[in-house]
């Protein structure tokens, strides 16, 4: 997997015109993807399908942002969900208490998240591997317990009640299902595009170098701590975006959004889809949500079903689905060339 990535790195970095071309291609793909998604309501009246895509946007942004840490930088965070929760709560609280226009709340939430992520990140990113995972988990639990304890402000375990007001802004009414759907799609595509740009930028290659050999990276004059902190904050911002989409969808924020299980789900999504391709987490998101939605329809013993599926991925494929497919293609191409 790393070889694959490294191979692409070699192919791309020196040729800057190639990188520019790639960027145009990415933008083009993003525009087409958005056009397809946004025109979906014209073809189907299924609100459930639109709901599904909205949820995919929320989780997809969140899971892909985690992959910036796990897949690209080698930072396995067990507490990434705190930023999902922060996004949902920040946005919900600002809308409920201040009644500002939605874009203002959006930007303000990102700013708050950036500050908190910078503080937590500054403490966490100097730790390695499992210890980094534990400290992020500890911070997540601390934030979760704070949300529960500070009931007068956060509503405690009952969450933000009474709905999040969604005033119309420039003709966009997020209380309207279709508007909310298109807005979510736009956020998803913009977020993914931005993360893609980060991943393919020189900074993105710096991250990969840190992942593969931090000592060498710092030997080459890279400030590893600073790079890690930067990506930690960036990933937090996209996670918060996911949280905001979720808050808009359920019209509320709940402490479960900041619980460690949500981080666990994101990790699970990444493993399911694969961490060595950019779209792996997106594939994982769709897979997990589909799986969850269908299995809960048939049985209340979904734990067993989900468990068996996980075992299939962990013990059978031993990697995420998109990784598996990518490797399979790579192998096939190789043997094809051999012939």
């Amino acid at each position, binding site marked *: 997997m790393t070889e694959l990535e490294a191979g692409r790195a070699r192919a791309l970095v020196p040729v800057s015109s190639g990188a520019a071309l790639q960027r145009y291609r990415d933008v083009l793909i993003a525009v087409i993807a958005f056009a397809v998604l946004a025109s979906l309501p014209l073809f189907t009246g299924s609100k459930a399908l639109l709901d599904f895509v909205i949820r995919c946007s929320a989780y997809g942004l969140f899971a892909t942002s985690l992959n910036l840490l*796990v897949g690209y930088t080698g930072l*396995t965070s067990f507490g990434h969900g705190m930023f999902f929760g922060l996004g949902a709560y920040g946005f919900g609280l600002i809308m409920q208490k201040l009644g500002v226009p939605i874009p203002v709340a959006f930007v303000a939430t990102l700013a708050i998240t950036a500050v908190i992520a910078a503080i937590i990140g500054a*403490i966490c990113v100097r*730790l*390695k*591997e*499992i*210890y980094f995972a*534990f*400290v992020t988990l*500890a*911070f997540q*639990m*601390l934030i979760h*317990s*704070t949300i529960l*304890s500070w009931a007068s402000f956060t509503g405690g375990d009952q969450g933000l009640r009474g709905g999040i007001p969604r005033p119309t802004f420039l003709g966009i009414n997020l209380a309207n299902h279709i508007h909310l759907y298109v807005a979510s799609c736009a956020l998803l595509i913009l977020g993914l595009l931005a993360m893609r740009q980060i991943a393919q930028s020189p900074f993105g290659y710096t991250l990969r170098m840190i992942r593969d050999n931090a000592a060498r990276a710092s030997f080459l004059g890279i400030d590893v701590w600073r790079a890690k902190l930067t990506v930690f904050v960036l990933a937090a911002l996209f996670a918060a975006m996911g949280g905001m989409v979720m808050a808009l969808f359920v019209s509320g924020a709940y402490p479960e959004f900041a619980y460690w299980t949500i981080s*666990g789900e994101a*990790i*699970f999504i*990444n*493993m399911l889809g694969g961490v060595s391709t950019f779209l792996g987490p997106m594939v994982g998101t769709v897979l997990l949500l589909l799986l969850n939605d269908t299995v809960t329809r048939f049985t209340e*013993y*979904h*734990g*067993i079903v*989900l*468990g*068996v599926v*996980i*075992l299939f*991925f*962990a*013990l059978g494929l*031993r990697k995420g689905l998109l990784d598996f497919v990518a490797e399979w293609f790579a192998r096939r191409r190789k043997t094809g060339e051999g012939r």
Partner: protein
Amino acid sequence: MDLDALAGCLSSSACLVTQTTSGLIIGMLLFLVAVGLTLIFGVLKVVNFSHGAFYMFGAYFAMAAYQLTGSFALAMLAGAAGTAILGLIFERVFMSRVYGADVLMQLLVCYAFVLIFDDVVRIIWGPEFKSMGMPSAFQVMPLFIAGGVVPPYYLLLIGVALVAAIVLGAGLSRTRIGKVIRAAAHNPGMVSALGINTGLIYGGVFALGGMLAGLAGALAAPVRSLTPGMGFSVLIESFIVTVIGGMGSILGALIGALLLGLIRSFGSLGFPLFTEGLMYLFMVIVLVSKPTGLFGKEAA
């Protein structure tokens, strides 16, 4: 915050004895679970996320045996032995396939079994909570020591946990098998080149870890309600314990568990609404100042 209550307690021997023993009780039971976790991590380098399930099974096995036989001793035995067998099977059949793989893969396998085990318990014993009941031998008046209250059952509990700690500590440092286990933690390749089946050692350690968690579950069964998913909060707490104490360190698990027990017993006096947060705060402080935990060694 209620610092007066805390200060008041610290100046009264009765309160000091009662709260200290209550911290010990919480701590020792937690130690039994955490020491298995830390042992498995130390030797197999695997963070056993399904450890809470063994605690749960221990409690359910004990309850089932107690209902069947009416014997408390058999109930404890069933809890410990049943989970030991379960641990052995779990390790040999599933976990052994992901050694050396990505940590996340190992976590995923464990997570899968957390889901599966919880549902299995739900299918066998139903979703409602159960209670094993206190054996009549322990339905006696609590003892009064220096004005503090100590129930006899908890003395037994602390005793069993202490014995387990001593046997484990002595076993690992004094017996040949203990020495082999510690050697395998360090260098499994060399151990196997000396003619020792490391697979068996791994299975054995996992079984031992599972058994300790199962024993904790069995010991807790008379005083805690049984429900699918009951292992979860215990897992999180023993996780905190091992992280504070240092992953892989048995002494660390003991100290960490006792510290946590005492934080809870005295924290509930001083900070009744933030006892939980206090634990996480403590963990953050320890990790930030010493990332490997109090007694942890730098990863080799």
